[in-house]
């Protein structure tokens, strides 16, 4: 098998050289196995579960469906880049305190999806939250505590804005 591809990806604002790669590798594979960024998870390989959600040029995408080599020249953001100083974002903190995390496998993808939603809509209603998260499957929580976490972030942001 030929593993001769060389290219460079911009992930979380940093240039990452990719060496000796196979052209068929997905962005999820390259992030996890070559760049040491395993925060994005793979659970379905079909874009159904959202566990691998990353942003490419600010669009939330399933990284399992993107060939890594096609992301050259794009700005890629992963869960590891949400807060590089080790502190938690408000969404991450709310997931912890509201009990939205059980096994945690869906969590990084959901955290990315929630940030993406709130970046584009600072006061989503219940239906908008559910629709925005319906591409991220969680098998443990039944979503109740996840909704609670999102509601808490929305209300804290609203009260601190006013």
């Amino acid at each position, binding site marked *: 098998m030929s593993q001769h591809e060389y290219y460079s990806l911009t992930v979380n604002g940093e240039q990452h050289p990719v060496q000796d790669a196979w052209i068929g590798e997905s962005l999820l594979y390259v992030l996890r196995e070559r760049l040491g960024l395993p925060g994005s998870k793979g659970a379905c390989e079909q874009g159904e579960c959202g566990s691998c959600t990353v942003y490419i040029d600010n669009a939330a995408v399933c990284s399992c469906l993107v060939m890594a080599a096609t992301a050259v020249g794009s700005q890629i953001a992963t869960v590891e880049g949400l807060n590089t100083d080790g502190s938690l974002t408000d969404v*991450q903190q709310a997931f912890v305190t509201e009990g939205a995390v059980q096994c945690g496998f869906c969590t990084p993808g959901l955290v990315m999806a929630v940030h993406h939603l709130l970046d584009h809509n600072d006061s989503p209603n219940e239906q908008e939250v559910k629709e925005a998260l*319906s591409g991220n499957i969680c098998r443990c929580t039944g979503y109740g505590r996840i909704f609670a976490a999102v509601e808490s972030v929305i209300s804290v942001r609203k009260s601190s804005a006013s």
Partner: protein
Amino acid sequence: MTITKTHRDVLGASALRPDGVAKVQGDFSFSSDLHAENMLWGATLRSPHPYARIISIDLSGAWKIAGVECVITADDVPGQLTYGLISEDQPVFAKDVVRYMGEPIAAVAADHPETCRRALAAIKVEYEILEPLTDPERAIDGSHPDIHPDGNIIRHQRIVSGDITATAPIVVEGTYDIGMQDQAFLGTESALALPDHDGSGIEVFVATQWLHEDRKQMAKCLGLPEEKVRLVLGGVGGAFGAREDISLQVHTALLALRTGRPVKMQYGREESFFGHVHRHPAQIWMRHHATEDGRIVKIEARMVFDGGAYSSTSSAVLINGVTHTQGPYQCPNAVVDGYATRTNNPPCGAMRGFGVVQACFAHEGQMDKLAVATGIDEVEIRLRNIIHTGDTMITGQVLESVAPVERCIRETAALPLPAEMSSHPHELDLPGGSGRTADRRHIVRGIGWGVSMKNLMYSEGFDDYSTARCTLTNGKVELKFATSEVGQGFVTLAPQIARSILGVDDVTYDTIDTQIGSAGSTSASRQTWMSGGAVDGACRLVRERLFEHVGALHGVDPLRLGIDDTDIIDTIGDFRISVQEACADLSISETFEYHHRPTEDLDENGQGNCHVAFAFVAHRAVVDVDIELGLVKVVQIATAQDVGRVLNPMSVVGQIEGGIAQGLGLAVMEEIIVKDGKVRNPSFTDYLLPTALDAPQVLISMIEEPDPQAPMGAKGVGEAPCISVTPAIVAAIRNAIGKPIDRCPVRPQDICF
């Protein structure tokens, strides 16, 4: 592993998960995140046929591919060729015959997953295709030749209780079909195996429910003594029963031992559907005899659980099914006939609810039929029949558990119903969800009920135990246990126990591995009771020694000492010292093994004290059904659950909401479609799971009546939420459309035609 210190996260507090921060940052290591220097990837070749004779296997094509380091088959298994949880009837690799679609035949190790894929494609297997046995009734009637040396019936169990000739004026019967559900944990099977330098042993990081059982089965197949097989829990992305059996453990270890290099194996989603057992599809016939005022006089039942090609835990699932025929109701007379069959369908075994889900779907359908036949309200008919502590069950066992069934029903009924659907509802609130296909004019609402009873822990004489160690050093506690944390939250609960008993806040836990005695499986709603009991016991032993030390030092009888918050106090005097001060420069370590009370096997008439304890729950479902398109929206689930004692409210809510979502899945969407022994939908595109848009409003009442048998009064809460919610939803659909539906999941054609 370090736990963030929180102030007084004792029992009863909603302590936060110690692994929560790592999980939200993507920093928590799941087994699939692990890497090792010089690591190879492993992959498995599986049968495309449900039943075939293997004529030949040609591995030469795989060996020729650059980057392939190892190719193995059944001929390379150094130890026992088969494994299994109860009966060792499943081959590590199929040798002469394959008995289900997806059965492993060979495995490869190579430098890259794509190399593995190509190597598998280059292996040539010649098959003689055989006629598969796919109808469990043919396994029972003997009309199909045995597909396995152990025969086509895994287990047959009768229950004969009371007067079998008894009858009564009201007789209702039904035949209920329960589909094959998948656990669909998000983190697929994965393991990293690291061979010892001299090849004499191996260390395996694996996502599993039961480290010690895996080790036992692996050691036999690898031909190694158990102490040469060390297992460490890799981060587990959900389990729900699917990690109780061996999947890739032996294959990964064999490839690593053979190559002398670390090997990582990880299933993709499609392979995961073939790589683990599922919930048994079942067909259950029941006939209830009752008085005109609705009291059950006799139940007749016949249950067929299709175990698929290998036995896994089928015999235990069957026992749970037949012994829960009556549900949470009194039943003086019963005749039950149960079969677990072997077919060429996918192997089935443990899934949350374990046989009781199927039995409950049938007995709750029967209660609704009884309500119609007697003209009694569906809540009242249940209340008239409820079982109480001290009642004798159809197995002859006396129900000793606290049994607040009446409170479960009444408190559920007291929870508010949802508002009527508005005349102009949001399209996402309609049946069809994001499909947005329903029309308000075609939508009808229905309400349905389900009540259930679930055994806790293992049954039938199994000596079930769990081990834990507590070490108190300089005012800090470290716990050690082999309890699999699969997301349920034992790692949150264990430190809460230690803080409560020892008055110490700084509690950490050591790596979860086989370097201590077994904790048993994270299944059967058992870890809060069993491993909680072990941690509780170990901490109490440490406290006893701490009191002896303090008593001797300060001249107080140790028996008078107690813990008050973070202080040690003389309970009948003025002496008080902080735990921190009292245990400076002190180190105490104690190990405790918790056993539950012994149980018995069932005899040929199904009589015996086979279960340890029970938990109860009621569910009320409200659904909107589009009768034109056959679409269902579950609007609300109200539930009151017997939890014994709430040790962590937020964790209990999480278990209840999550269990309800899985029961909802079985009610209206989740089914592995098997045709002629072949799985037709092994993907998340075709096997549908509840999404955020499918999540109903959930109203919860927790019923706290501490069970004196339980170490901390708390019953396991994991399984109960997913059991009677399924029949409640299906009953609500029946109520909405006014037609009988006796199967789950309910499909559009069941509603429309």
